[in-house]
């Protein structure tokens, strides 16, 4: 398993998340196997309540699994203690949430620099980096704006910039366009495309087929399990394109 773990940027084996007991037992994630190579973009699609978000929370160390293994960059992470898990979230994982989850009282740039400050970087370094990230997502002119003064799409771009603050190994995005209109969705889509092109490893949970189409692979999920996998481009270096292979 360790060899396999070293091969992939992110790997899950027999991953389970269960709630309740006996007859009330619910398997939110049921024996999921997942491999994500470095620079790959994987999209997970499925109906509401199928366990997509739970899977993402397990992969990112936001929640504890009931069983199975998770490996990140060759290191097993599902058995880490609370503090090590916090370090993992801080240094190796970037999150993008459907509800943006920006701090309302902080400006765009203050939100983006927060993970760097939590990681102990100097305020000056954190601010310089945050300015750069905001420029990267096209919001340099909105750096001093509060989230309430930004549109939904702009907020999500700030959240994406924040997810990149500590140069994560993998970015996990949970329904990143779920709260956005068409134009904003397009902006976010372009952003993910550029991240993908830059070699950032991405796992995106989405309902939106346009977002899913930016991925190298598309995984369908139902009742906590993977039921289908489609390779869209055939590799991390590909561009958006049509399905290349469908696995039963």
């Amino acid at each position: 398993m360790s060899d396999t773990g070293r091969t992939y940027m992110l790997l899950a084996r027999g991953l389970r998340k269960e709630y309740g007991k006996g007859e009330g037992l619910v398997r939110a994630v049921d024996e999921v196997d997942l491999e994500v190579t470095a620079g790959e973009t994987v999209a997970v699609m499925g109906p509401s309540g199928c366990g997509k978000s739970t899977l993402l929370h397990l992969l990112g160390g936001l929640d504890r699994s009931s069983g199975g293994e998770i490996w990140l960059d060759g290191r097993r992470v599902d058995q880490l203690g609370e503090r090590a898990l916090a370090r993992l979230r801080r240094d190796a994982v970037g999150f993008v949430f459907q509800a943006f989850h920006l701090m309302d009282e902080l400006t765009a740039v203050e939100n983006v620099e927060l993970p760097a400050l939590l990681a102990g970087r100097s305020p000056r370094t954190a601010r310089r980096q945050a300015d750069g990230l905001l420029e990267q997502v096209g919001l340099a002119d909105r750096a001093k704006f509060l989230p309430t003064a930004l549109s939904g799409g702009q907020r999500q771009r700030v959240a994406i910039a924040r997810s990149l603050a500590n140069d994560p190994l993998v970015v996990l995005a949970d329904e990143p366009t779920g709260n956005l209109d068409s134009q904003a969705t397009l902006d976010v889509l372009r952003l993910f495309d550029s991240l993908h092109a830059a070699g950032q490893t991405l796992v995106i949970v989405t309902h939106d087929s346009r977002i899913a189409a930016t991925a190298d692979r598309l995984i369908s999920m139902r009742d906590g399990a993977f039921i289908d996998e489609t390779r869209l481009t055939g590799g991390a270096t590909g561009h958006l394109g049509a399905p290349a292979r469908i696995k039963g």
Partner: protein
Amino acid sequence: MGRILLVCRLAARDLRRRSGEAVLLLLVITAATTTLTLGLILHGVTTSASYQSTQAATAGPDVVAWGGPPADVMALAHAQGVIGHTGPYPVASPVLRVRGLTVPVLAEGRDQAPAPIDQPKLTQGTWVGNGAVVLERSFADTLGIRAGDSVTLNGRPFLVAGIAVTAANPTDPPTTPGLLWLTRADARSLATVAHPLSFTLNLKLADPAEAPAFVSAHAAGDGTGILWSWEFIRGLDTQVVTNEQLVMLVGSWLLGLLAVASVAVLVGGRMAEQTRRVGLLKAVGGTPGLVAAVLLAEYLILALIAAAAGLAAGWLATPLLTRPSLFPGLARAPGAPPLTVSTVALVVAAAVAVAVAATLVPALRAAGTSTVQALADAARPPRRRARVIAVSARLPVPLLLGLRLVARRPRRVVLSGASIAITVTTIVAVLVYRASNASGGPGTDPVGQVMLVVTVALFVLAAINAVFITWATVLDARRSSALARALGANSRQVTAGLSAAQVLPALPGAMVGIPAGIALYAAVSNGQTLIIPPTWQLLAVVAGTLLVVAGLTAIPSRVGARRPMAEILQSETA
């Protein structure tokens, strides 16, 4: 009528659903109403009639003289206006030991035959005899001594023959030793080189009203003798009640302020939780007026119950503060006056005022919230303090999180700081009182006892406040805490941040409490000597307060920081 019933039913249901919080609120308001009731009842206590009855029962003197040698004291017996005297009686100053306690006493030598002036009235046992002493009642009560017990004086055993009261003993409880009577021979035998005998003489004047003038005319001015008029003695007894009244009234005001802070914090927290309920009420046709009425009714119900409980508790506790042992010169205690209609009305009004003051703004705010927003359970947007955010970026993670939490809810910070300031003010006022009034023996200070009770009540209320405020902060910051953890802060850092958010406002609160406590004592002490306690004591109060706040907030902070972040981030909207 139907509308009132509906409001009451909805309010009662919600109270039952959150019974734990309701009980806490009830306790908080009851503490304030109990103290207020005590203060108001004590305000009606007068000791003049009680002192006069003691004077009559003991043939109390108009003037008491203390000093020596006996010839000097006796000269007063022949002064103009004096129509009778008893004494001079020898007074020794031995050390009394009983059950491991050692206290200095004044032992007054008496004849076995009754004296025509100042014959102490026995409340237990018999009068003095060879090897048998009689203890002044408040002193005996303080030490828990009864007739038939044994004590030693300067190491010699004596039987306690009886307990008695006198109108001739100007006992200032915190500063004078206890008093007992024994035979003249026993008194003389207890004199030592270090503590020789002094003498006391009781005088009867032709015109008792002239006693103060007599004292002024004959006071030595060189400190060799002491003269007390009966009015002076009565004044000291009355002073005990006056001081108690003052402490209780000031205490009830402070407790009332703390209660407002407690209720405001609790109500704020509950209102935040009730946003969705408000939305539902409005969605099914509830008017803003109905919503505000339901929210206010809950707290009015609690306030009325607390007022009733406070009145009952205060009325039951009053005898403890007017018990005979607290009034050394009185043959009978002043007794507690009955509850008056005005007392009841004032206490009920105060309880209702506390509830309304703390709930009106949140209730009106909730009533004015848009139905859609309320149904979405949108959190109240936090305040932004740009400078605090900039400064906090330079601090370690726990302080960064704590300071930003502080900046989010300035009203809560003010309540938290005020709560601590009120408590520290009281503690410092008690320390100043202790420093300014050195104790004359164990438990001989009724005002000090009342102060202690008020301080303990304030401390408990402040502790409840600290926990409430922390929990309200935990609830309010659940999304930002979860987000901070998702972004890499660990739960220890978040716990420390939540605690820091309580300790940071406690520091200025405690610092303000030091001068405020000194000022409070100066304001209510009627120009009495004011001795400021040592600096280390004052600093210890500040440090102790911060430690206690940190300790009290640690558990709710820890619970808050360990809530499942995925669940919170999943359920909370932006």
